[in-house]
């Protein structure tokens, strides 16, 4: 992965804006930002961000590559879409932040162990297995993401909530052995692999 990062640095030299435009989903919109700050003021987790979208966009233009890719900012997006509907220049801000998160993750520059980064990967891996999300396995994987001991603690802390969901028939303990799945889960796996291959080729990633 760091190899991918070195290749990207060599390919784009110091032109980080061009790198973002070519390789990040909706990255070609970044230059349209006029720095009004409405996105920063609209974000529900705004106070928790290391950098607001407004700052991230200016940092991209200023070529602050490491600071942007290592920022935890993109991982604080709740996908509420407040920024997207309020942006006076109609930048698809939510998509750009998602795209930056994905790109930083691909280059392995994103903060290690960043909780949303970790669960985003768990979620995707979970859904790719069968074509559908297994909520029980996903919850357990999240509890145990920081090791076994912490996992038991997390599971115990959420035990009462979990049991009330089981009682309400909204969490099925039997999902641990199989559970819901698509009939054509193998076709779905092949489809996703092919899509990823096309995208990698298009964006100049070498595997």
């Amino acid at each position: 992965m760091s190899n991918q990062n070195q290749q990207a640095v060599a390919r784009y030299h110091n032109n980080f804006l061009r790198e973002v435009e070519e390789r990040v989903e909706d990255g070609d919109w970044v230059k349209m930002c006029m720095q009004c700050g409405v996105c920063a003021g609209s974000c529900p987790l705004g106070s928790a961000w290391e950098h607001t979208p407004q700052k991230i966009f200016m940092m991209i233009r200023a070529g602050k590559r490491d600071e942007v890719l290592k920022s935890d900012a993109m991982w604080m997006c709740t996908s509420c879409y407040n920024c997207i509907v309020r942006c006076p220049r109609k930048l698809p801000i939510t998509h750009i932040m998602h795209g930056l998160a994905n790109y930083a993750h691909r280059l392995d520059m994103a903060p290690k162990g960043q909780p949303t980064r970790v669960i985003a990967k768990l979620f995707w891996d979970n859904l790719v297995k069968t074509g559908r999300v297994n909520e029980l396995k996903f919850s357990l994987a999240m509890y145990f993401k920081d090791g076994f001991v912490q996992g038991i603690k997390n599971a115990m802390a959420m035990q009462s909530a979990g049991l009330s969901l089981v009682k309400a028939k909204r969490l099925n303990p039997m999902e641990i052995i199989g559970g819901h799945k698509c009939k054509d889960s193998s076709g779905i796996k092949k489809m996703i692999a092919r899509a990823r291959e096309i995208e990698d080729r298009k964006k100049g990633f070498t595997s």
Partner: protein
Amino acid sequence: MAKKNYAFYPGCSSQKGASASNFVTSIGMMCDKLDIQLNEIPDWNCCGASIGYGEGGELPRLALNARNLALAEKNLPGQDLVSGCPACWLSTRETAERLHQHSDLMAETNVALKEAGLSFKGGVKARHMVEVLIEDVGFAGMKAQVVKPLEGLKIAGYVGCQTNRPFGIAGESFENPMYLDKMIETVGAEAVSYDQKVTCCGGALAFSEPEKSQKQIRDIVESAYDNGAEMIVTPCQLCQANVEIYQSEINKKHGTKLAMPVMYYSQLMTVAYGGNSKQAGLDGNIIHSQKLRDIAAK
């Protein structure tokens, strides 16, 4: 009246034994009464939801959603795709629109789809269940089926994020959409005015950033209490789960005594249409509304 047919995309949380299984229970009778026929898309898959982007990238997510659109196009031709889940709807609609706008993405997506033996021509519209109710049935149509008005029930209509943004319901504002309040009034209840109608519950970050999300949830529930609501009602599966489930966690941490029922609009409608507790999926709630149960038992 002839039944209106739709290609139904339930989504992962609406499966049997999953976190929104009572939502699907509650729309059964509502759809019957309103002559809505939901035809489940065969072998539908996950949409990737709000955090699929982290690992998934763009084209894999488009392919996932295009597979559902292609399955609907092939098996249920001419029918709009309808989902009750805002995340499913958002992902599917976004895909349909992007593929429509960008012929290169459409071509690439179809190369990927071929691996699953499918192709998508672009002829399916993705809609939210609430759009079907408002645009195809109408408020008058919804009201016509009410046999037990939910009189005296004060409700905070919680629209949340993804039913409202970035697409929203046609003709409604992003900052103060009125349709959910109108739906509440349509079934005879009172919609209270409060300031957290479109506040984010934290979404998927309820798992990864629990403190920050629980602050959002606490604000929403407390504002509903402060404005006299006895219940929160939402069109969103994740809003419902987050706002209901984490109240006990907030109570444990902060010594609060939050116990606000959080229901789906479809549960209200089913009760108002004469359905019992079971038909309305009321047994699927963790925090119960005695008033709604009493009306259902009348």
